[in-house]
């Protein structure tokens, strides 16, 4: 187990290192470099800027400085937002996105698991067909489509829900629904097939042969086994939610990290793009490691490896 954790963490560190490196060199493809791009300034000002950011030094030195800064949590200065560091911006904006994302993940898990299970128990009956239908559609509809349709219907046409910001509980309904839509459908599908698989297992027959009731069979013997694949999906789910928040926050004008990121792309605030990318990558990669380790802990079969 210890060896496994070590291996996974080492892989994660390597991935994060690679992502940071790729980010750094890609950003240097931008003419003038990420810190100065497309700014008409006087040669003196440019020289001052170059000195300030260390851009007069060779690329290898810049790379070294940047990576050392990363280790210390220094992601540089925002170009567009005067005087604020990228780290400060992330620190103020991320909690908003985290709340939204957390709620969405919770919704997806709490709705998707029962839906998938119900479908599996009623295999081939109408309840199953309804869930399959919803799940199939849910997977096919991009988040921006869900967002805009919700916005049009409940925000503009019916006027039931507020469309901008995150000031009250009502404000959360549409963004959370939009963000949780795809993962709910995905989890329902996953849960359905995994539950069907579990229901066909020999130990379920043993449980029935013991004289256990339907309820006990399902809640004690089936659910815990069937939920395991869903646990492995939590890593990708986080990645989806974070990237999904770009679209959702943009559409509902939510002041989170997602809309900040989209803004930095259109505003060409390269240090902010770099910083956010690396921050999110670290988040996703570490979540994957945590999920993998948690999976091994939940499933006793793999414990000894």
């Amino acid at each position, binding site marked *: 187990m210890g060896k496994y954790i070590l291996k996974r963490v080492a892989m994660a560190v390597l991935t994060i290192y690679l992502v940071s490196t790729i980010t750094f060199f890609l950003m240097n493809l931008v003419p003038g470099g990420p810190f100065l791009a497309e700014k008409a300034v006087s040669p003196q000002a440019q020289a001052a800027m170059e000195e300030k950011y260390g851009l007069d030094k060779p690329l290898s030195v810049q790379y070294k400085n940047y990576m050392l800064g990363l280790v210390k949590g220094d992601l540089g200065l925002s170009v567009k937002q005067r005087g604020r560091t990228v780290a400060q911006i992330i620190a103020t904006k991320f909690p908003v996105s985290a709340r939204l994302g957390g709620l969405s993940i919770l919704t997806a898990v709490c709705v998707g698991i029962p839906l998938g299970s119900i479908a599996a128990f009623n295999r081939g009956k109408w309840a199953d067909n309804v869930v399959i239908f919803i799940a199939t559609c849910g997977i096919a509809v991009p988040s921006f489509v869900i967002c805009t349709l919700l916005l049009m219907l409940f925000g503009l046409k019916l006027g039931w829900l507020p469309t901008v910001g995150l000031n009250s509980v009502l404000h959360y309904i549409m963004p959370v629904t939009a963000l949780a839509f795809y993962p709910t459908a995905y989890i329902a599908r996953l849960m359905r097939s995994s539950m069907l698989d579990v229901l066909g297992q020999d130990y379920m027959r*043993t449980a029935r042969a013991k004289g256990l009731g339907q309820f006990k069979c399902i809640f004690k*013997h089936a659910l815990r086994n069937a939920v395991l694949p869903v646990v492995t999906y939590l890593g990708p789910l986080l990645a989806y939610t974070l990237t999904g928040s770009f679209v959702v926050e943009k559409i509902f004008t939510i002041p989170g990290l997602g809309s900040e990121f989209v803004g930095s792309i259109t505003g060409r605030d390269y240090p902010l793009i770099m910083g956010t990318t690396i921050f999110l990558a670290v988040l996703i990669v570490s979540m994957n490691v945590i999920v993998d380790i948690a999976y091994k802990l939940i499933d006793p079969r793999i414990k000894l490896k």
Partner: protein
Amino acid sequence: MGNLLDIKDERLSFFTPAGEVKALGGVSFSMKEGDVLGIVGESGSGKSVTSYSVMGLTAHPGRLIGGSIEFNGHRIDQMSEKEMRRIRGNEVSIIFQDPMTSLNPVYTIGNQICEVIRLHTKKSKAEARARATELLTLVGINEPEKRLKQYPHELSGGMRQRVMIAIALACEPKLLIADEPTTALDVTIQAQILELMIELREKLGMSIIMITHDLGIVSSMCEKIAVMYAGKIVEYGTVDEIFYETSHEYTKGLLRSIPKLTSETHEKLVPIEGTPVDMLNPPKGCPFAPRCGACMKICLREMPPYTDLSDTHYSACWLIQKREFEKAAGGEKQ
């Protein structure tokens, strides 16, 4: 004394999308308390289906479509699911073929044994635990206290089958169904498990239905044997009758296909040619006819009737009828 188990003309079909699969086409047999019956046949012959139906465990598209099953004076086929649950694991219990997959991987052995004890008795947690320890000792597992805390994957196959037996015996059932309990195990372990079962049967005196495709196992354990083929019992009798007065061609085939260590001459093992019948379109006549070496014209047309050979021995084969017919014809000539 009444019968413990009485199955009369049981018919059971699986309704699959491809059509009705007649898994059982009129199976009848009965058992007295303490009887040990072996059901022999190849895969798909209906031996497992028969025994599962005794526990009301018929898998999903399967449905009983005729006949009756009476256990200990109760009509099992007419019981509600709730009544059935009181019997399962309590009065009738079962040991499955594959111990590797029959235990739930995410719960400890102790948890899974105590579960069945607490379900059918009013024992407290501690009492159930004590009983579980006792059961593990009974089935020959040493360090029972330690094993109770382990997960199935930490035990070997033979050990897991012992645990399955412990679960089955937890409530001292009247009838134990063993569905090929040794097929998935190594040969040496097989012998140990069989020995254990014989020992337990002597100690506890319950009836056993032993399902297997291995005639060697039944000969060492059982008193009576039912040979099944394509959803029907083709021959039924005591061990001696089946082995030494074999009357059905299929049984003969089975006997020819087991190696005999005792034989001095180098007897050749003869496999049964061909493949089992397609149960979706069962043939009109005797289901074994296409693979039978002594197949006659009538075999292809008509199902042979059962003929009694002794009080305990009967068989369904046209060859017996042929003998009777010839005897009758010979008698006429004389």
